């Protein structure tokens, strides 16, 4: 049996008439971590939300399927499965953490109640046992005095602590897949590092698969087994994290990597190259390659003529660029 835990096939999505994702496919095996990298507006958050079917009402799925393999061996098409099955999977099999720890918690309930609420609806566990599990989890997530924190309200906690609580809510039922939508973006740099370390550690301990969405390649490098680069709603490159970062195949990935500062850069390198132009208006993506107008390797008559096909390199790398082979050489 080599079935993926999560497989998104050919998935397209639009908000009203504006397309957000265009025929994106991803596969995540049990215990694997896939990081989706992209700029604002690339559609990366929509992908995570689509798996949970938490997209805003204006979103319309136009093509594709999202299949999830539950722990009991049944496979579910998440875009069409009925609401009760979805409720059983959400929180229990798939946990999700969000970008904004300041607003992701309900301000009127105590932390403890918000964590045990998830257990209550998924497991027939006595109240005290649910509480004990929540306390133990908070302690495990590095929260001091977890007993006391259980009685706190969200506004009494710092951003870092709140994000740990959001993580606790997502993990309390031991999901096999964790979706993290820019979980560190709203946090201080030091807290970011702590949360990333925490997620890495948890993944190691629990063998949990991770779908991690970020705009930050440095973060991706930290936590990814594989990286998928999204541009204007299209997957432009995918491969093992180390390989993608060491030898990017798509000009966009390369440009992104060049714009990340590194420790030990000397003075001449201090001016980071920026990518010229801006992400295309989703309603008017160029007919050919979406990145063509900003691409340093653009070739007229080729790149603007038709959408580029997927080119595969070796067993597990793929790129959507006409000139990938020639540029890789």
């Amino acid at each position, binding site marked *: 049996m080599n079935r993926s835990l999560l497989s998104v096939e050919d998935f397209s999505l639009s908000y009203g008439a504006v397309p957000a994702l265009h025929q994106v496919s991803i596969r995540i095996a049990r215990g694997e971590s896939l990081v989706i990298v992209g700029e604002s507006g690339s559609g990366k958050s929509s992908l995570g939300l689509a798996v949970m079917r*938490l997209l805003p009402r204006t979103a319309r799925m136009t093509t594709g399927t999202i299949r999830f393999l539950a722990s009991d061996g049944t496979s579910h098409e998440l875009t069409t499965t009925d609401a009760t099955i979805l409720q*059983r999977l*959400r929180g229990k099999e798939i946990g999700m953490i969000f970008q904004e720890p300041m607003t992701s918690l*309900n301000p*009127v309930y105590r932390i403890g109640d918000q964590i045990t609420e998830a257990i209550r*609806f*998924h497991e027939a566990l006595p109240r005290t046992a649910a509480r004990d599990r929540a306390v133990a989890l908070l302690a495990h997530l590095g929260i001091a005095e977890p007993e006391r924190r259980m009685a706190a309200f969200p506004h009494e906690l710092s951003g870092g602590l709140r994000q740990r609580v959001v993580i606790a809510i*997502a993990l309390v039922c031991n999901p096999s897949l964790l979706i993290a939508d820019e979980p560190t973006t709203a946090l201080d740099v030091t807290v970011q590092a702590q949360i990333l370390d925490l997620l890495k550690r948890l993944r190691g301990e629990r063998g949990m698969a991770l779908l991690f969405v970020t705009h930050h390649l440095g973060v991706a490098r930290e936590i990814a087994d594989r990286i998928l680069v999204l541009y204007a709603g299209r997957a432009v490159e995918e491969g093992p994290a180390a390989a993608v970062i060491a030898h990017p195949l798509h000009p966009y990935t390369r440009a992104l990597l060049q714009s990340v500062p590194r420790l030990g850069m000397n003075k001449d390198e201090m001016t980071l190259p920026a990518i010229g132009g801006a992400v295309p208006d989703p309603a008017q993506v160029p007919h050919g390659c979406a990145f063509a107008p900003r691409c340093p390797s653009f070739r007229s008559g080729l790149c603007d003529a038709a959408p580029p096909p997927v080119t595969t390199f070796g067993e597990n790398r793929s790129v959507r660029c006409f000139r990938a082979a020639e540029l890789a050489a």
Partner: protein
Amino acid sequence: MLDYLAGRFAQLLIVLFGVSVVVFIAMHLLPGDVATLLLGDRATAASLARLRHQLGLDQPVIVQYWRFLSGALSGDFGTSLRDNRPAFGEVLQAFPVTLELTLSALLLAVAIGVPLGVAAALNEGTWIDTAITTPTLFGVSMPVFWLGLMVLLVFSEKLGWLPVGGLMPIGVHMARPTGLSILDAVLSGRSGLVWQALRHLLLPAATLATIPLALITRITRGEMLSSMNLDHVRTARAKGLPESRVIRAHILRNALIPIVTVIGLQLGLLLSGAVLTETIFSLPGLGRLMVDAILARDYPVVQAGAVFVATVFVLVNLGVDLCYAVLDPRIRRQ
């Protein structure tokens, strides 16, 4: 918390002092001489002077105010100029009628308005939403005197289902230890009286409920819609909670604060006397007592009533503020 309550109590005293001054001055600025009003046009100058002296009206205004204030502090607002009964006693006697009317009207408004608002919000933009919100527009703009007369005409005159007014059928007598019709009827142990009390309350309560009902429906709908898109609602769904739980515990629960504010404001307003409703349905409540007293220049009753209403208003607002603290933990610490 104690500091807070002490502060609010001091505030109450200041408000009451202000009210006493304003009411006192207003009553004395009104044209017309109380003595003439009481004794009639053909009274002799001597009897008029005697009455003025008796009422203390020949004293300087500041002395009159001092008498009023020192009396009021001990609960003595003087006697009614119309029937010589203690003014404050008349107010206390009328208040339960208004209280019962107000509470039943608000109960109706909340019990119907909140679910309607929720239903409208959940079906935003559909015909259900329109079917709920359109009548609420009529509701807020409906003149009570007209509506009251219309329901009387239909349900009492034409259909004969419900009584035209009053608290009990004429000729029926019941001890009124609390002054609240329904409670007194229950205490009397006669089930027929409870039924009568409810029948007499229904039309006035429903009439008085229209505006609050429409307001509560609209506010609930609006607050539900803005709470629905908050991030924590998404977190709640991501936990795998059933939709009913998400709506109740994570959307409506957070929308309650503004709803409670409206309910509190309406409670304060209605308690200070539903004059029109009480008049149309011949209910001996506070609003009618005040209007009659003003028309008769019965200033002890007016003053007693005004101070009483102000006290109730401030206390209701205090109650609403305490509700906030229960509903929103973020307010508790401040």
